[in-house]
C-alpha cells in the first residue's frame, strides 16, 4: 500500500505505482466505510464490471439524475478536463447525449465528426488519436464502425477511453442505461429472474452484445429473438456461455415463445442494409413477422416494459402505438442515458493513466 493512499481505499493495479501525489480527501470523514472503488481507466465494454462496480455506476447515476433535476443542472466536477468526442459514425443522438453529459459536468468538450476531420483525408486512426492527445484530451469518447477500435484506442491513448460503440461489438453506456431504466421501472428494482427479450437484428448489434453481458450478469432470464439470418451464431454463445453456466440465455426465432410472459421487451433497430445484404426479403415481411405490435405485446406480462435504443424505424421493428404507448419507457431511456454517461465520465475521470 502506498503510504499516501487514504486508509480503507483498496489498492488497485491501475493506480499502483503511478506516482501521483495523493491528496487526502478533506471531506469524506469515513475512511473505513469507503464502498467499492472504481479502478477502471477505460470502459470498453460491460464485461469487465463486477456486480459491485455495476452497483456503483447505478448509484452514481442516481446522483446524476438528481443533478439533472436542479435549477442549474450543472456541477463543476470535471472542470478543466478536456473530453474529446470522436465519432466515426453519424449518430446525432448518442453524440449529443455524451456532449450534454460532459458539459453538465463542466468539462471542456471537443467534438470531432468524421466529415469535418482529417480522418477523411486518409489520416490513420492512431495518427488521429495522437493528435487528439497532443491537443490536451484527457478523456476520449469514441464511436467507430470497426469492432475492437475502442480496444486499439485504449492501447494507444494516454487518457481514458469511454467506448461510445465499436462496430458490432459493444455499446456499454447503452447497456448500462438500459439496465438502469429496467431497475427503476421493474417492481423490486432488480432484473434478476425477470424475462427480458431482445427482439430483432442481434447479429449486427453492439447494443445486443453489451446487453447480453450485463443482463446475464444481473441474473435476467434473457431471450434473444429474431429471424434466423439475424441471430445466426448466437446459439453457440447462448448455449456454451462465455462465463459461468448461470449466464446462459435463450435464442429463438419463435417470436410468440419469446414474448410470452416477458417482463421487458427491447426492440432493436433494423438497418436498411440488411435487405440489400440478402438477409431479409423485405421490411414489410420483417414487420409482419417480428415487429413489436400491440397484439404481440399482449403476450407479455401486463405492464411489461417496452424499450428501444433508438432511433426508431416506426412501423418496422415497433408499431407507433407501442413505441408511444403507456408501457414504453423509450423517452426515459434517453433521459437516463445522459445521467449514466455523466456517471461514467465522472468515475473514469478519477483514474489516470501512466503518463
Amino acid at each position, binding site marked *: *500500500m502506498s*503510504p*499516501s*493512499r*487514504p*486508509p*480503507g*481505499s483498496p489498492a*488497485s493495479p491501475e*493506480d499502483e505505482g503511478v506516482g*501521483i*501525489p*495523493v*491528496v*487526502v*480527501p*478533506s*471531506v*469524506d*470523514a*469515513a*475512511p473505513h*466505510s*469507503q*464502498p467499492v*472503488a*472504481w*479502478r477502471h481507466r477505460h470502459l470498453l465494454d460491460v464485461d469487465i464490471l463486477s456486480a459491485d462496480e455495476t452497483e*456503483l455506476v447505478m*448509484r*452514481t447515476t*442516481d*446522483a446524476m439524475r*438528481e*443533478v439533472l433535476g*436542479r*435549477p*442549474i443542472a*450543472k*456541477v*463543476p*466536477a*470535471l472542470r*478543466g*478536463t478536456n473530453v474529446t468526442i470522436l465519432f466515426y459514425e453519424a449518430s446525432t443522438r448518442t453524440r449529443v447525449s455524451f456532449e450534454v453529459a460532459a458539459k453538465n*459536468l463542466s468539462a471542456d468538450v471537443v467534438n470531432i465528426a468524421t466529415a469535418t476531420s482529417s480522418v477523411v483525408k486518409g489520416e490513420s486512426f492512431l495518427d488521429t488519436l495522437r493528435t487528439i492527445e497532443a491537443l490536451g484530451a484527457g478523456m476520449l469518447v469514441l464511436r467507430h464502425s470497426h469492432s475492437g477500435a475502442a480496444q486499439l484506442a485504449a492501447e494507444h491513448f494516454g487518457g481514458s477511453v469511454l467506448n461510445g460503440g465499436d462496430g458490432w461489438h459493444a455499446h456499454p453506456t447503452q447497456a448500462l442505461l438500459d439496465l438502469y431504466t429496467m431497475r427503476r421501472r421493474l417492481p423490486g428494482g432488480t432484473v434478476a429472474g425477470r424475462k427480458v427479450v431482445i427482439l430483432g437484428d442481434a447479429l449486427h448489434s453492439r447494443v445486443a452484445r453489451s446487453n447480453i453481458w450485463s443482463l446475464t450478469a444481473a441474473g435476467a432470464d434473457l431471450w434473444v429473438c429474431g429471424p434466423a439470418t439475424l441471430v445466426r451464431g448466437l446459439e453457440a454463445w447462448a448455449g456454451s456461455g462465455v462465463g459461468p453456466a448461470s449466464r446462459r440465455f435463450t435464442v429463438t426465432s419463435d417470436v410468440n415463445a419469446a414474448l410470452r410472459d416477458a417482463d421487458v421487451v427491447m426492440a432493436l433497430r433494423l438497418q436498411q442494409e440488411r435487405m440489400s445484404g440478402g438477409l431479409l426479403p423485405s421490411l414489410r415481411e420483417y414487420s409482419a413477422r417480428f415487429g413489436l405490435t400491440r397484439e404481440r405485446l399482449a403476450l407479455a406480462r401486463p405492464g411489461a416494459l417496452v424499450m428501444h435504443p433508438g432511433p426508431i424505424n416506426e412501423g418496422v421493428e415497433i408499431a407507433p402505438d407501442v413505441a408511444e404507448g403507456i408501457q414504453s419507457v423509450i423517452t426515459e431511456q434517453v433521459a437516463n442515458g445522459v445521467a449514466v454517461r455523466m456517471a461514467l465520465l*465522472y*468515475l473514469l*475521470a*478519477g*483514474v489516470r493513466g501512466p503518463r
Partner: protein
Amino acid sequence: MSGRQIMSADELRRATVRISHEIVEKQAGTSGLLLVGIQRRGVPLAHRIAAAIAEHESAQIPVGALDITFYRDDLSLVAQQPVVKGTSLPFDINGMTVVLVDDVLYTGRTIRAALDALMDFGRPSVVRLAVLVDRGHRELPIRADHVGKNVPTSREETVRVHLAEVDGEDSVEIERMADLPGGAPAA
C-alpha cells in the same frame, strides 16, 4: 476506540442542543429557517438539531442533505473518485436563511464547496454555518456561526466524529495520524 476522547455522547448531545438554541436565537424565531446537512455526518447532525428545535420551539424546520462531492477542489488530485452520497433539498432556498451543518470545520474547503453547491439551487438571503467541532487551521476566509466545541489540534492529528446513525455510537476522538492504519491522514 484508538484515539483520545474529547467529547462523550452526553457532551455531544448537549452541544447539539445548545447549537439548536443559538440558531433560533440568532434568527429571532424559526420562520424562514432551513437546515442543510453536509454529507455525510452533517446530515444526521442537522436532523438532531431540527429535532431539538422541534422540542423546544414546537416548530418543524425542514432539513436537507447536500453532497458537495462534485464541487470539491481536489477532484483532480485524489486517487479515486469519491463515492457520491446524494443531494436532497426538497424545498426552495430562495430568500430563506440556510444553516449549513457539518461535523468538523478544518480547512474551510468543504464549506467553500458547499456554498458553491448551494448557490446553484437558488439565492438564500442568509447562509450560516454550524459545526460540532472547530479544529482550526483554516485555509480560506471562513468561520462558523455556531460551534459545539473548539478543539486546538495540530495538523498531524485527526478528529473523528462518530454518530450513532452512521457509526453506531456517539463520540468525538482525536488521534495522531501515525496511529492510523497505513499512517495516512484523513478528515
